[in-house]
Every structure is written in C-alpha cells, then in structure tokens.
C-alpha cells in the first residue's frame, strides 16, 4: 500500500513527491529480498568453509562448485560468499532502521543503506559477469543473488534520491552538512513547526 494521500501530513511532499519512499510498503520488499539473498550467500559460504559437501544447482550441475572453488572466489582472505552475506545483512538491517520519515530524519541511515545497495550491486554484477568470463562455469544461486542485488536498486533508489534532495533542501535553508546528515536539522524543524 503506497502512501499517496496526506502528503503534507507525512512531509514527503517537500520535493513535490506523490508518495513516500520511506513507507513500510516500499521498504519491506527490500528487507525480504535481503534476507533471502543473505541465506543463499551463507549456504554458499558453508560450502566454501567445507561445512556442506555439495551445493544445489538445477542448471549448471558441477558449475557451482567449480565457481566456489575457483581462485576468483578466494581472492580475499575470507570466502567471497561470506562477504556477500555480510553485504545483504547490511541491506536488510538498514532497510528496517528508522520510521516512515527517515529519508529526512535519518539521512545517514539511508546513505549507509544506499552504500549497501549500489556499490555492493556493482560487486554482485562484476562477479556475475566474471563467472563465465574468468572461471568458465556458471553458478545458479550466485546468479540468483546477482539478480536480487539488481532488483533491489530501483526499490532503494527512490529513497536514496529523496534523502539527498531533503538534505540539499535543509542545507539551503541554513543547516550545516552534519546537522542535515545526522537528521538533527529535521528534528529541530519539527520542534519549531
């Protein structure tokens, strides 16, 4: 359910928007996707740690184990799937932080959320492109997680954008960067208003 009515009461019409990207209806899909992707990544990490003997793959057969055992997957001191799981953890945890006005009351949380989605999305896309190009094999669950990372971008981008717009608006009204970034400027505005 998108909050389209009562824009003024919710305060998301500062930039003339017709809906609130911080509404729970906008954030819950990201949280659900993040949780699913995190468990997939942890399952893949369990194989890389040797805790499970094989990995389910309906499309590429042994391709998944070839990818997970490759030098590409062990470039970092810890398995790449574990790093992926950490990234998705940041996504869903910061998807839950704050209320329905957080785009201006907690811009720092939205920015961290954005860092979890956008730069992490680049890593996921890069790894998805690398599998066939460098390893020469496919990995079904890795591809599913890359698709989830890409699907989360449009879901999250509206809130990130409105948060940046709200910060710019606060700074134009005289607030300093840190006051706008921390949300202190928005809290003061609410108290004065």
């Amino acid at each position, binding site marked *: 359910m998108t909050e389209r009515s009562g824009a003024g009461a919710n305060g998301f019409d500062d930039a003339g928007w017709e809906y609130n990207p911080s509404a729970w209806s906008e954030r819950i899909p990201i949280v659900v996707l993040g949780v699913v992707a995190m468990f997939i990544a942890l399952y893949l990490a369990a194989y890389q740690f040797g805790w499970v003997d094989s990995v389910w793959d309906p499309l590429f057969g042994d391709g998944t184990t070839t990818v997970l055992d490759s030098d*590409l997957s062990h*470039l970092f001191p810890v398995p790449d799937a574990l790093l992926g799981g950490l990234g998705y953890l940041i996504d869903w945890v910061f998807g839950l932080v704050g209320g329905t006005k957080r785009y201006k009351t907690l811009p720092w949380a939205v920015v961290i959320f954005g860092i979890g989605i956008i730069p992490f999305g680049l890593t996921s*896309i890069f790894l998805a492109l*690398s599998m066939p*190009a460098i390893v020469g094999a496919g990995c079904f669950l890795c591809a599913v997680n890359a698709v989830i990372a*890409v699907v989360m*971008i449009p879901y999250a981008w509206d809130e990130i954008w409105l948060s940046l717009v709200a910060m710019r608006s606060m700074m134009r009204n005289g607030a300093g960067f840190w006051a706008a970034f921390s949300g202190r400027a928005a809290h003061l505005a609410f108290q004065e208003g």
Partner: protein
Amino acid sequence: MGRLWEVAPPATWGILTVAATLLLAGFVLLSHSLVRRKAHGDRYTGIAYPGRLEWTFRVGAGCLLLGLALWAVELAAPVWVVAALGGLAAVAFGLEAVALTRR
C-alpha cells in the same frame, strides 16, 4: 596485484570492470527514470523528447546495452551478437544526441 594477474589477465579485469560499471550505471539511470515518473506522475512524452526524464531512459538503456556488448566481447560471443548489442547502444545514444540538438 600479482594474485589478480594470476587469476586473469589485466585486459580481462579492465573489460569486466568497465562492463559491470556500465551495467550498474544503466540500472541506476533506468531506476531514476522510473522513480521520477512515479514520484511526479509524469506521463510518457516520446523517446526522443528532450526532457530530463527521457535522457535518463535513453542513456540508461545505452549504458546497459554497451555493457552487455563489452561482456559479449569478453565471452568471445559471435560477431553478430556483439554488433547487435553495440548497434542498439548506438541507437540509444543517437536518440540522446538528437534530443540534445533540440534543446
């Protein structure tokens, strides 16, 4: 760095990094195009319309197609696949160039 070059040659890393960055830029620009329509209730005004909503769509689609073309090059895909993707990317950027001249 030596470890990286053992896994794949520098050219491969370079091409894949550029391709992934183009794909991400494409997804973000297309998302921005969708978000602005949803946020402001804007209506479709034509793919070559010189407005700010459409440039995100044209450039986003161009980045996406160019990224896929680069990936196809790295995968040694058939020439017609690379040419088709590259050609479609050129059409998207060409439409943006047309729109720029109308501004």
